[in-house]
């Protein structure tokens, strides 16, 4: 067993997953509040392209990130307005915006194709970086990757342990109940969707200025859909989503390692495996949540019930549904 290679690989997986983690967290925040943002794929492309363009023109990585955050936030604000205020189908808008933003990124990004721009500088943390094993894995990356490392614990803590997080969870489950308690459902949803959009924008530029530097035609297309799938795969729980991101990156690394097919598993199978798992998860989770099955499940002993509930945590009950204020 080549330990050095393994360590390098794991460090690489941690690094490569960073944008995906940021994107999935953005989707998570929005969906927990009950709003689907299907435009992720397009948003990431458009924000990534904009971030790169700005950084290239101003030679400032920071400005690039700010621009990307703005783009992601603006697209999300549009979705919030159309989906939450005007109550248009979130599926339809998200999908159209995904295509629109993809094409916009190609069109406006044309001048920047194959250009070399600034990149996020490496930033080993002094002292910690020299720790054996852990040092290489965790402390010899850059700001973006460190962000991805702290984001999940931060969001998990915020969502599960603070009052604000409690409200957000309530918004995704039963907004009527929160409205009756005097909470401004619409405003909260706007805020969460836009913050989610900012994260999605940051994820996009995390590619173009760091992990897949530069800009090419349809640069990171497809990543947004993968992020959406991972959130479902992770059953709307931050730590499981994190696991999903690492799992996916690991699969991709394995896929390129097995090009010579020593295991006889076609690499393409590995690449689509996450999606198959996602569909299976959805099928199992949703059917376990069906009312007909509920009565049967309720007759099982409590520990078994708890385990089923843990595995089969369903989507936020009000996800995607319009909220009609009286």
């Amino acid at each position, binding site marked *: 067993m080549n330990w050095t290679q393994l360590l390098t690989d794991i460090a690489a997986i941690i690094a490569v997953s960073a944008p995906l983690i940021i994107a999935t967290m953005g989707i998570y925040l929005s969906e927990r509040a009950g709003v689907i943002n*299907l435009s992720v794929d397009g948003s990431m492309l458009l924000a990534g392209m904009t971030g790169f363009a700005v950084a290239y023109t101003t030679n400032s990585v920071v400005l690039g990130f700010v621009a990307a955050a703005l783009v992601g936030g603006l697209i999300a604000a549009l979705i919030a307005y*159309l989906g939450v205020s*005007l*109550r*248009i*189908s*979130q*599926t*339809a*808008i998200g*999908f*159209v*915006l995904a*295509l*629109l933003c*993809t*094409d*916009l990124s*190609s*069109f*406006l*990004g*044309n001048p920047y194709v194959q250009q070399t721009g600034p990149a996020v500088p490496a930033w080993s943390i002094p002292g910690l970086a020299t720790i054996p094993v852990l040092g290489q894995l965790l402390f010899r990356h850059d700001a973006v990757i460190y962000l991805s490392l702290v984001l999940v614990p931060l969001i998990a803590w915020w969502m599960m342990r603070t009052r604000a997080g409690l409200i957000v969870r309530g918004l995704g489950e039963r907004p009527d109940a929160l409205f009756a308690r005097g909470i401004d459902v619409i405003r909260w949803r706007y805020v969460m969707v836009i913050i989610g959009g900012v994260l999605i924008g940051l994820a996009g530029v995390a590619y173009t200025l760091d992990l897949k530097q530069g800009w090419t035609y349809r640069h990171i297309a497809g990543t947004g*859909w993968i992020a*959406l*799938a991972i959130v*479902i795969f992770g059953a709307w729980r931050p730590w499981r989503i994190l696991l999903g991101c690492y799992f996916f990156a690991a699969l991709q690394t394995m896929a390129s390692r097995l090009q010579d097919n020593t295991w006889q598993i*076609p*690499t*393409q*199978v590995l*690449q*689509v495996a996450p*999606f*198959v798992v*996602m*569909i299976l998860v*959805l*099928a*199992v989770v*949703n*059917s376990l*949540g*069906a009312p007909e099955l509920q009565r049967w499940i309720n007759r099982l002993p409590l520990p078994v019930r708890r385990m089923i509930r843990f595995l089969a945590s369903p989507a936020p009950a009000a996800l*995607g*549904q*319009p909220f009609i204020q009286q």
Partner: protein
Amino acid sequence: MKTQFVALRTPIIAMVVALTITAVLLLLAGADVFAAFGVLLTGALTTPSRIADMLMLLAPLLLCAVGLTMSFAAGQYNLGIEGQITVGGVAAMWFLRGYQDGAPVILYWIGAVLCGMLMGALWALLVALLKRYMRVSEIFAGLGFNFVALGLALYLVFGPWKRPGVASMSGTEPLADALWLPTVTGTRLTLVTPILAIMMLAIVWRLIRHTHWGLQVRACGLSALASVRMGVPATRRTLEAMALCGACAGMAGALQVIGVYHALVPNVASGIGLMGLLVALLVRADIRWVAAVALFFAVITSGSIQLPLTLSIDSSISGVLQGLIVLAIIVARARRGEEAA
């Protein structure tokens, strides 16, 4: 008459808004706005070769849009359409690989198209069944199956069906020359494809608007509760509509393999399904407009290919225009109180 005019007013305003924003974007990119629009609208119509290419895009687009009209009529968002095109191509290729020199070609073509339709229908049915019986959102199931279909195609292209020598993204081992569909001289246009597309348009038109079956499907899409109350077999109609949509998509995929690529390429669908979804979102199950909108989209998409050469701007502006039009119309409808969740 007046109500018809009023009804047209909102879409016209929407079109104007979309065109204005596109114009602004063109200016930002430093292009001559009028020249650009000129290329978009007429670029595909200047030479027989270009018209042929436009028609070769229009045909599968029309097939998909027509199929999607049915799934929308049943109230379903068939986001899995790209996957259905892909597996249609896979199935067609599978059938065609059995070709022996000297066998009647026509039988193989018919067989390939039928295989494609069957496989596409099955692929769509899987999604519909998952939704109906395991309550999986058809959005995520559809997207997931798109990737699975892509994976399947990639596996075949790089694996068992690869080109002798070097496996590459340009596709599998190509079809024998005899299996290539005959083209109009000097162009890449195979007449079979547009003819089949128009046939499917006519068939689906008749189905949706002039049969009892179509009425029932439309009823399910408009109000599932009321339909069931009045004795409409809602589940069955929804599944049938989805299957037929998949069949149309599968046919498109099969024709792409036989008539355009002459091999199975991973990119069989090449965004045609997505464009079809845009068309369907625009016409919203009103089949009378499908042909016109599909033609418009095909024209500007084909025309845009020349933009990089003639005006040094990226061709994606056609996609931007399409997206803006659809978005504007959706918003316009919502403000008129018509857009349901």
